[in-house]
């Protein structure tokens, strides 16, 4: 007598891999990049990674419980989203913003659209773009070794040069996970060995992008190999190509579709990076391409085995698509089997995809370029006005290079940081000359990054020591003006007022300090009420400028 037998429909065997296995493999593959990120950026980065993963998992569990659905956090998909989101964030981002991003990714982009498998856009990237638009300053502040600096891509865009080995290994600034191309490639190889991802999309993506970059570099006279490699290692390209573009849900499921998707991504990233406003184009390129995926799938649906074979007699052979499409329209033989899309249709659909891609990229690029000059002009005008304001006696203002002021490398950021001013950078140093061409003063443009609302760019005028009526007048500050300041209206913005700036028009000292208790001498500045951070930032900037001034010897 047998025990109870189980019955089910065939097939009766299953492969060993499950959804959670795949997700877990992705987490493992991201570990090298995470480790490099934590090494580079320290504790706050580790906190962000932990917070993102926990909040993504937490929000998914909460949502599913609230909607009386089965809680599926054990399939690790929320954890993967959390980790990917964290790796896309700058290392010093406030924790509450990371939590908000996680909520957006899981609840809005994923769960509201139907949960696992139904999101129309990559949740981690969508959340990153959401944060980018809402908290731009925080999302674009990158530190390295505790020092705020531009990412290598920004440097490249401004025409500078970068250290390739650092970029490949990851000793540069950037978001937590994107810095080390080497670590990311290691993870990608693991995923390919485990057959989780196919190299098709990433290789086509990177290949298209690299070709476009190389052609661009050759056309604009840059060092082709260096520029291309730098573009490949910089920014989120490696992270995006291997981990975000290969996300199952938002990439095409058909074989040819993957290739089309890769090309679209490559082109869009190229256009956005080179002709767009920001140096980083990968995130937007990927989410825009995600929107094109349903169309790509429709256009590249596979032909069923033996499709149309009965129309050619018994020696049926695969003919080219054009011939088949003609006979399809004429006969009933395929009885209901729709042409997946005949040759003309596929070409039209794919052409539409490319046109949309290029038009969007071009539109963004054109707007940026068309407005670049007028913006630059306006900025230049503001600068000249500021110069006039801080040094009204100057007949002309002449920018100078490092050599001319003693070769101190002042304009190199690291120099100032090493001197004890990690948050300041000197943007420009100018000589103020009188009608006879004699230098009577120095104008410095300083940026301090520790304002409440971000960077504060100020212009400070210094008069050189001179004899007036037989008495020697020491160097002093002739004026303080602001080129860029985004502080709180009514509080920090009061810094631009005469009451505050006039406090600085005193002889140069070792260092200004601020006080809330009422200043007692000229080296003290009365803090703005309710705006200590702004005050501190401005004072720090002025101190940095004074420090550099003191090194420009021979003009005492």
């Amino acid at each position, binding site marked *: 007598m*047998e*025990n109870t*037998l*189980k*019955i*089910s*429909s*065939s*097939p*009766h*065997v*299953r*492969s060993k*891999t*499950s*959804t959670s*296995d*795949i997700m877990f493999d992705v987490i493992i593959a991201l570990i090298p990049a995470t480790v490099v990120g934590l090494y580079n950026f320290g504790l706050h980065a580790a906190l962000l990674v932990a917070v993102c993963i926990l909040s993504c998992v937490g929000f998914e569990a909460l949502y599913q419980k609230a909607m009386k659905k089965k809680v*599926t956090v054990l*399939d690790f*998909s929320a954890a993967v989203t959390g980790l990917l989101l964290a790796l896309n964030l700058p290392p010093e981002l406030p924790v509450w913003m990371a939590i908000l991003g996680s909520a957006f990714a899981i609840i809005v982009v994923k769960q509201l659209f139907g*949960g*696992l*498998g*139904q999101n129309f856009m990559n949740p981690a990237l969508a959340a990153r773009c959401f944060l980018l638009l809402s908290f731009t300053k925080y999302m674009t502040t990158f530190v390295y070794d505790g020092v705020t600096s531009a990412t290598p891509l920004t440097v490249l865009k401004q025409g500078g040069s970068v250290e390739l080995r650092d970029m490949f290994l990851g000793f540069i600034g950037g978001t937590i996970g994107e810095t080390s191309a080497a670590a990311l490639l290691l993870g990608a190889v693991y995923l390919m060995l485990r057959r989780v991802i196919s190299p098709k999309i990433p290789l086509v993506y990177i290949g298209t992008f690299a070709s476009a970059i190389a052609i661009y570099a050759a056309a604009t006279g840059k060092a082709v190999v260096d520029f291309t490699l730098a573009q490949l290692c910089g920014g989120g390209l490696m992270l995006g190509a291997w981990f975000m573009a290969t996300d*199952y*849900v938002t990439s095409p*499921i*058909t*074989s040819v579709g993957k290739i089309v998707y890769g090309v679209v991504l490559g082109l869009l990233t190229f256009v956005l990076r080179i002709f767009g406003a920001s140096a980083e184009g990968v995130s937007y390129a990927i989410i825009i391409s995600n929107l094109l995926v349903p169309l790509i799938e429709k256009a590249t*649906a*596979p*032909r*069923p*085995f*033996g*499709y*149309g*074979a*009965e129309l050619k*007699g*018994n*020696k*049926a*052979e*695969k003919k080219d698509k054009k011939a088949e499409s003609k006979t399809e329209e004429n006969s009933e*033989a395929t*009885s*209901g*089997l*729709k042409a*997946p899309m005949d040759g003309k249709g596929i070409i039209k659909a794919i052409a539409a995809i490319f046109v949309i891609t290029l038009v969007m990229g071009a539109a963004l690029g054109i707007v940026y370029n068309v407005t670049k000059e007028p913006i630059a002009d306006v900025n230049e005008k503001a600068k000249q006005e500021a110069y006039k304001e801080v040094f009204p006696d100057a007949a002309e203002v002449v920018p100078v290079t490092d050599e001319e002021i003693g070769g101190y490398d002042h304009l190199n950021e690291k120099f100032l940081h090493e001197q004890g001013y990690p948050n300041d950078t000197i943007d420009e140093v100018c000589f103020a000359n009188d009608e006879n061409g004699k230098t009577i003063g120095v104008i410095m443009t300083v940026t301090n990054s520790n304002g409440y609302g971000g960077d504060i760019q100020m212009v400070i005028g210094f008069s050189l020591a001179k004899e007036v009526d037989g008495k020697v007048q020491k160097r002093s500050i002739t004026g303080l003006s602001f080129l860029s300041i985004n502080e709180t209206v009514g509080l920090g913005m009061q810094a631009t007022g005469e009451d505050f700036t006039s406090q600085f028009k005193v002889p140069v000292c070792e260092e200004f300090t601020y006080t809330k208790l009422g200043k007692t001498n000229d080296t003290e500045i009365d803090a703005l009420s309710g705006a200590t951070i702004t005050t501190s930032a401005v004072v720090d900037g002025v101190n940095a400028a004074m420090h550099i001034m003191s090194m420009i010897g021979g003009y005492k």
Partner: protein
Amino acid sequence: MYGVKYKYLFLMKKWGIFMSITFKGGIHPYEGKELSEDKETLEYLPKGDMVFPLSQHIGAPAKPLVKKGDRVLVGQLIAEAGGFVSANIHSSVSGTVKGIEARLTVSGSKMNSIIIENDGAYETVEYHTNDKPIEELTREEILDAIKAAGVVGMGGAGFPTHVKLSPKNADEIDTIIINASECEPYLTSDYRRLMDEADKVIEGLRIVLRLFPGAKGIIAVEDNKPKAIKLLREKLGGDTDIAVNSMKTKYPEGAERQLIYANTKRYINSKMLPADAGCIVHNVDTAYAICEAVREGKPLIDRLVTVTGDAIANPMNILVKIGTNCSELIEAAGGYRQEPEKIISGGPMMGKALYTTDVPITKGASALLCMTKDEVAECEPSACIRCGRCVSVCPGRVMPNKLARLAAANELDEFIACGGMECCECGCCSYVCPAKRHLTQTIAGMRKLVLSNKKK
């Protein structure tokens, strides 16, 4: 060289490169062949009553010729073909007819069957042998012998062979393929047939070739059976009419359309027959049965069954008399090493699960697979993550995840338009799905609905 346009094969012969041919897609499940492939075949004499369902083939059920109380002999015709597409049924034992009643079959349904009590004597009717050389056999002789013997496709489908060998476009047939790939895991009966009776299989193929002058033969064997390939090639020597093709080992290498494509590069779809591509495909056992029918005059009364699985003590192949009860076979194979959770008639990919072993072996039942664990019950289906594995393994090149979604939403027209009827229900998609979704079942259900609608 061959009527077959296949340049790889030509190159292979020319350069002596041993290359395996195949199609796009397919999976590589655990093969399980080592359990039974090298064991000696057991010839089993049944103990209990023999049950002969009247429909062991595609087409009209056979009409019984005996009634309760009649004495029958081995090889006696007990039911004759009930139409053009139908087949004869013969008794595999001598004894007395107990009656004709509805009995459970391996397909899960009850069917009218002839019950015969076995007297153990095995008294046999006289067989008419035929030793004429191949060239002198006439078409009628061959087809009559096959029809009389009740030979049907032994691969499981059970299509009456004499009908298959009389296609409308007989002069366009240029390739006869013997399907020896045995791609279903665990099954080794075809392999054993090749190893033990290669001569008769080849003779069967030659007889079929005689029916189609100008045609060439191919024996398609998967490359996980190197001994069989070697043996066949030795036996065939320099025969230019028959080739032995080595196929890449994967499932479903033996699926008819994919097999024809891999061997001849010709396509057929679900609306066509192999004859439309100039091919006829037979299972190894069918070729053997053809030889027995024509040369020995023996009707189809026994077949090889692989009794295997990790729940069986001595997995092996058994030469079973048609009509034997499955529970006897399990005993013959040593009984259960461990209580099974699932018993399957056929292979694990397309076989049917049984809820009892109290069913008879029919002409199309090729295996009894007893598994200690049911892999399907272990996993709960979850959401589709659009990973695309099902699309990449589907031999029919359709999109199973899309078809399953349309089937679940009852969208008949869209289902057909997206190629749902091209699905051969091989099971590759369900096998590979990491979310453990029941894709094959959903699609198969919709296909049944569409077919039954068509019939109305």
